[in-house]
């Protein structure tokens, strides 16, 4: 049963990865939400199940046009039988930003050298199993956010906490329905205060014994929406198909795609997609690699790569 739950939750996470979310306007956080495969769902809250054993270390980088690159590192693992913690840290330090000056009459005053700008942030997410009764699984979610942003004439920092709940119902062999709800202040970037937001989503996963390639496989689909107190609405649809059997030794290939949209930004609905592979070994160790890409309109295509190690 536990193995099944692990599989279900992993699949749900993958499904969420294909769903858009747009929590926050911190740069690293934005890029993370946009391009990272494993954390894009549910406002970046790690939905790994609290019952799952083992630890995972992941490193991620995302590249946007104009030389904007983001680096991230995450560590997650169980802390006792019902609690799982996840730490995400990231750095966003764009280079080659050329400064320019202005004269007193408003005309061009020449180049002004390089402009320094950087942002560091961290999330700590806790996932606590509170109910495990029959087909039902319920976990409480909590997340703390911290950001530091430095610019030539401005330095600011901020922190916030939000809470939520995750529920899952097993619907027969190999099927599960998961829903989640998050609410609270969301960081709008250091120094920019916080806005309230509510995130709700639902995902359906199914594991099949005869997949498209003849072997075991499965799929998950989901939808997620986010409402911010500023009046903005974000949302997305996504799906993932995998080849292999989740949670077991061997290789599992993930292929996913989805659509996202955001109101109030003149943005059209945009696709995104990616693929990943997870290789579990009998020793309990595993490696994973994930490639994702999202078209950013005028900014071009933003690729994102994640590599990770799973430990027993």
């Amino acid at each position, binding site marked *: 049963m536990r193995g099944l739950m692990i599989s279900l939750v992993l699949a749900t996470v993958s499904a969420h990865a294909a769903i858009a979310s*747009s929590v926050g*306007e911190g*740069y690293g956080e*934005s*890029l993370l*939400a*946009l391009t990272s495969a494993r954390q894009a769902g549910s406002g970046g809250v790690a939905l790994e199940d609290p019952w799952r054993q083992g630890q995972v270390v992941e490193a991620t980088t995302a590249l*946007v*046009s*104009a*030389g*904007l690159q983001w680096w991230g590192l995450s560590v997650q693992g169980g802390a006792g039988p019902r609690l799982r913690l996840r730490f995400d840290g990231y750095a*966003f330090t*764009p280079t*080659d*930003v*050329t*400064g*320019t*000056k*202005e004269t*007193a*009459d*408003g005309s*061009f*005053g020449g180049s*002004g050298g390089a*402009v320094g*700008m950087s*942002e560091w942030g961290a999330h700590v997410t806790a996932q606590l199993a509170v109910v495990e009764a029959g087909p039902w699984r319920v976990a409480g979610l909590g997340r703390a956010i911290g950001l530091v*942003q430095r*610019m*030539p*004439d*401005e330095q*600011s920092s901020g922190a916030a906490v939000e809470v939520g709940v995750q529920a899952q119902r097993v619907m027969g062999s190999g099927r599960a329905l998961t829903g989640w709800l998050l609410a609270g202040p969301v960081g*709008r*970037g250091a*120094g*920019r*205060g916080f806005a309230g937001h509510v995130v709700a989503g639902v995902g359906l996963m199914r594991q099949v014994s005869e997949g498209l390639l003849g072997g075991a496989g499965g799929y998950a689909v989901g939808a997620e929406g986010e409402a911010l107190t500023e009046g903005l609405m974000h949302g997305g649809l996504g799906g993932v198909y995998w080849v292999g059997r989740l949670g077991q030794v061997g290789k599992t290939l993930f292929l996913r795609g989805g659509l996202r949209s*955001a109101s*109030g*930004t*003149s*943005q059209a609905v*945009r696709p995104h997609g990616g693929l990943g592979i997870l290789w579990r070994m009998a020793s309990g160790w595993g490696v994973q690699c994930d490639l994702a890409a*999202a*078209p*950013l*309109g*005028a*900014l071009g295509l*933003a690729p994102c790569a994640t590599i990770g190690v799973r430990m027993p």
Partner: protein
Amino acid sequence: MTAAWLLLIVSVGWSADWPTDGGSLRRTGDAPDARVVPPFVLKWTFDMKAQGCVNPAGASPIVVGSTVYQGTRGGLCGWVYALDARRGTLLWTYVSGYDTMTTPSYENGCLYLGLGMSGPFAGRAIRVEDRAELWTYGTSCDFVTVTPHGETAYVQGGSDGVGSATLYAVDSTTGALRWSMTDAPPMHLGGTPAFDNDGTLVTPGWPLLAIADLGKAPHVKWSVTYVGCPCGRPDPAISGDRVYFRQGAVPHAIIAVDMTNGAVAWTLTVGGGIGPCSVHAKRIVFNTIDDTSATASGYVYAVEDLGDHPSVVWTTNTLDSSVLTRRPLIANGMVYLTGTVNGDVLYALDLNTGDIVWTHTLSANSISSVAYANGLLYCAGATEVQCFGKPISLGLEVDKAQGNPGDLLIYTLTFDSYGGPSASVTLTETLPAGLQFVSASDGGSLSGSVLAWNGLSVSADAVRTVTATVRVRSDLTPGTYTFRPTAFVTYPGDPAYNDMTSDPAVTTVTVTAAPPPVYTGPLRVYPNPFIPARAVRGTVKFEGLSTGATVGLYTPRGLKVWAKGLVTGSVVEWDGRNEAGRLVASGMYVWVVEGGGKTSRGKLVVETGR
């Protein structure tokens, strides 16, 4: 020569393809082709007899580029004359060594010759450049023709019963035999085969054969037996999915056959003997004889193929019954054919109405079929090759087939009076919008938008050239423009050439107006970092933009914050607020300037204190 010849007005017009607004930038419509309408005058005569080899059996001239090739059929000498198409001067003579030659064929720089009348018989290929003999393929058939088609040349003969009627397919470069098809009499082969778009060959014999898979496994796809042998060749002509041919014996008829299966679609029976047909679109033109009349008058028929039946569009009585052996030529909206009963006459009929527009009495007997190119007609008699056209012929060339805004275009008008009179020429041109006059030779000057040369003289049998230089305006709206400059000559007031219009000189020039640069000067975005409270007017400036450029500001995740297009001036300013009017948060933003197919990006640090 009348006094009216002292004034020739030559006008040059650029067709109205130049855009008049920015709403429809791509103009690809062509001006309708100017139509060459007779009357013509004799431009030149080439005397074959004086050269030593004549053409009593009527091989027809062919025109390739600026050269006319004329074979000598039945003159006991198989020669080829190569003539300058505009002047009729002899360029070179090729002596085959055979006693006659049918109408030659041309493809890819080679002439293909059918040689021999009293034997021996052969097909031959020579390279035009140096007249080198590529190959000679001997046959047992008389009246040989060679028809190149791709990599294969088809050598055939046998129409008069000398030898077996055989079709040889040989390599067009080496003459090596690829396959042959022989049939015992009464199969006859004469004239030239026809090909459809699928590469199926229709033999000019009896029965009519369609041969498919010519390159791999040639086989008879279908055959049509008709009443014909031995009363004349079918002379098939293919248009679309139909082949049309004549039935030379009673009942005389034109027969339409589907190329796909050989089914006879319809048969049009006429009263008398019938000549080869020509096809333009669905209109079939052929000659017949009214056998019932005392004079055996000749008629020209134009028939429309309506699918399952024909419709006679017009008939014209030429009173000339000798036209049966010559295929009419359809060119430029006219039908040209020759006859000999009423003298040696060249006829020009309107393709649409059948009206006889012009006739010209020739000087030599046994005239050939007619060739047409570049506004000039060519036909051959027994001893002469003759060219007909307008008294003064114009040629117009532009030095560039493609140009860009700001480019200079030099166009050259060459007008010759080969066969024509001496004249004083006034040349005018109205410059269209988009072109600016730069200079003109020979005293040409601009008045308003009209460029004119006055009093240009051209002598009889002479050529003269003037040039004009114009510049494509550099401020053209982006787009592609196609010009078809056309020049022509009129002869006002001269009774001999009343309302005569010269053959048009047409060429094509395409001007591509590239999109303007995104910015007119160095693109400057300042100040950076942008602190609205400190910046002049509280804005960041995007300076150096061109009209049509757009500026967009985005978050690093691609969400649009603000955008604006430049309408006037060269600067766009942003006050730090998003499209909802709220001051944006501090941080890194990406600006994107787009326009003219070019995109520039940069990073802007914004510090709003939020």
